[in-house]
């Protein structure tokens, strides 16, 4: 057994050196420009909303902007575009709210054949569930800190 442990350690070290590394600069560039474009699109939507609806506040426009981006990303997921964008941009299309929308729509599509309740509804949050849980936990902690200070 001792011999195996030693062998496995050497093998994993050897494997780590053999694994091709992702080139950081092109990956970062893809993520930067796609992520930036999504954010820019968001800003344009918000500005247009405030331009079209005179009585809309910045906060209200911000909420509608998110709704529009979420719907848009969901639609792009449904027609099979967002996964290709994600493969190209990585974090650039995962981090914005559109990525969150994709992470909910894609399992919903995938598991709809297992039924509405235990398929679609139950599996909808398999990817985004941790984000929601951590978001709520973080807000509870922030709330407690707010009460104290």
């Amino acid at each position, binding site marked *: 057994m001792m011999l195996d442990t030693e*062998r496995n350690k050497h093998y994993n070290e050897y494997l780590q050196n*053999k*694994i091709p*590394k992702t080139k950081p600069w092109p990956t970062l560039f893809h993520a930067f420009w796609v992520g930036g474009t999504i954010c820019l699109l968001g800003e344009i939507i918000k500005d247009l909303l405030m331009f079209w609806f005179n009585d809309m506040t910045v906060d209200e426009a911000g909420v509608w902007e998110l709704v529009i981006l979420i719907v848009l990303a969901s639609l792009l*997921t449904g027609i099979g575009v967002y996964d290709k964008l*994600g493969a190209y*941009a990585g974090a650039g299309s*995962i981090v914005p709210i559109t*990525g969150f929308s994709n992470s909910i729509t894609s399992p919903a599509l995938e598991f709809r054949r297992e039924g509405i309740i235990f398929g679609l509804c139950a599996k909808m949050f398999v*990817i985004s569930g941790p984000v929601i849980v951590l978001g709520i936990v973080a807000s509870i902690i922030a709330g407690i800190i707010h009460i104290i200070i």
Partner: protein
Amino acid sequence: MNRQGKSTLVFNSKPRVIGNYSVVGPKEGRGNFAQYFDRILEDDTLGQPTYEKAECKLLELCIDGAISNAKLKPSQIDCMVAGDLMNQITSSSFAARSLNIPYLGVFGACSTMAESLMVGATLIDGKYANNVVCATVSHFSSAEKQFRYPLELGTQRPPTSQWTTTGSGATVLAQNSSGVAITSATIGKVADWNVTDVNNMGGAMAPAAFETLWQHLNDLSIEPDYYDLILTGDLGKLGSEVLIDLMENKGVHLGANYSDCGQMMFKNTQKVFMGASGCGCGASVLNSYVLQRLKNRTLKRVLFIATGALLSPLTCQQGESIPCIAHAVVLKGENYV
């Protein structure tokens, strides 16, 4: 004892391949073996409502094709030995339900083709069957769903990842006097060299291929150059390089006669990183390219080593390393038996 060395079965009656068939998906049909496959699907859903049903249908099509190729009827098949990647090997069992043939389900993950051939050849060599069909199937979309992420999720695949083949291969073995023969097979041991990266199957499976190949060569007291082709199932680019290194460390050189189905399946332009994987990968290449070349005598002796990672999504999440297995089957052309 029909056994040589520690774990190599010798089939004295030399079960013959009397029929074979391969069906692949559209992406595989644009790959390097396009001209060899019997059937290339235009639609990888096969008109089915779910990918699981599509996978089952794919296997049915392939087995039907192999039985027709052998000029037999399903009722003349004594046993069907098949397996796949789905939980509880549902694709194979559901296909067996509609084919109505006595059925043995086997699971060896991506090593299934070698395992089913080995079991099939044993049944024939032991005179328990006249005709046996050995088959396996994998489907990209059903495998992604079970093992990875939803298809439409916008994630990046890591550079060590491989692409599960949509494809199936089936071989009909029989007690016959002519045709490509299965002469021996080596049963692999589970090898776990403590690789935990599920995105590096090639690296995890290479030790299993190495141990089986090493055992096989020792059991039969032969050198790798005894074979015109040593073909691993789906180690991919990285895994096959690792296998070459591991053999080199033992002082055995794997030369130009070594190839890997996974590495060769797709063209470089098809963006699949380390190549193809899945039990359909080795199965479809074996039942098209390899058997055609054995039949037309451009290959004499082939060692087919299919490798499988025996993990489940659950064991990965629980932090377990990846146990792997490899089985080897020797196929020889008619004149070289």
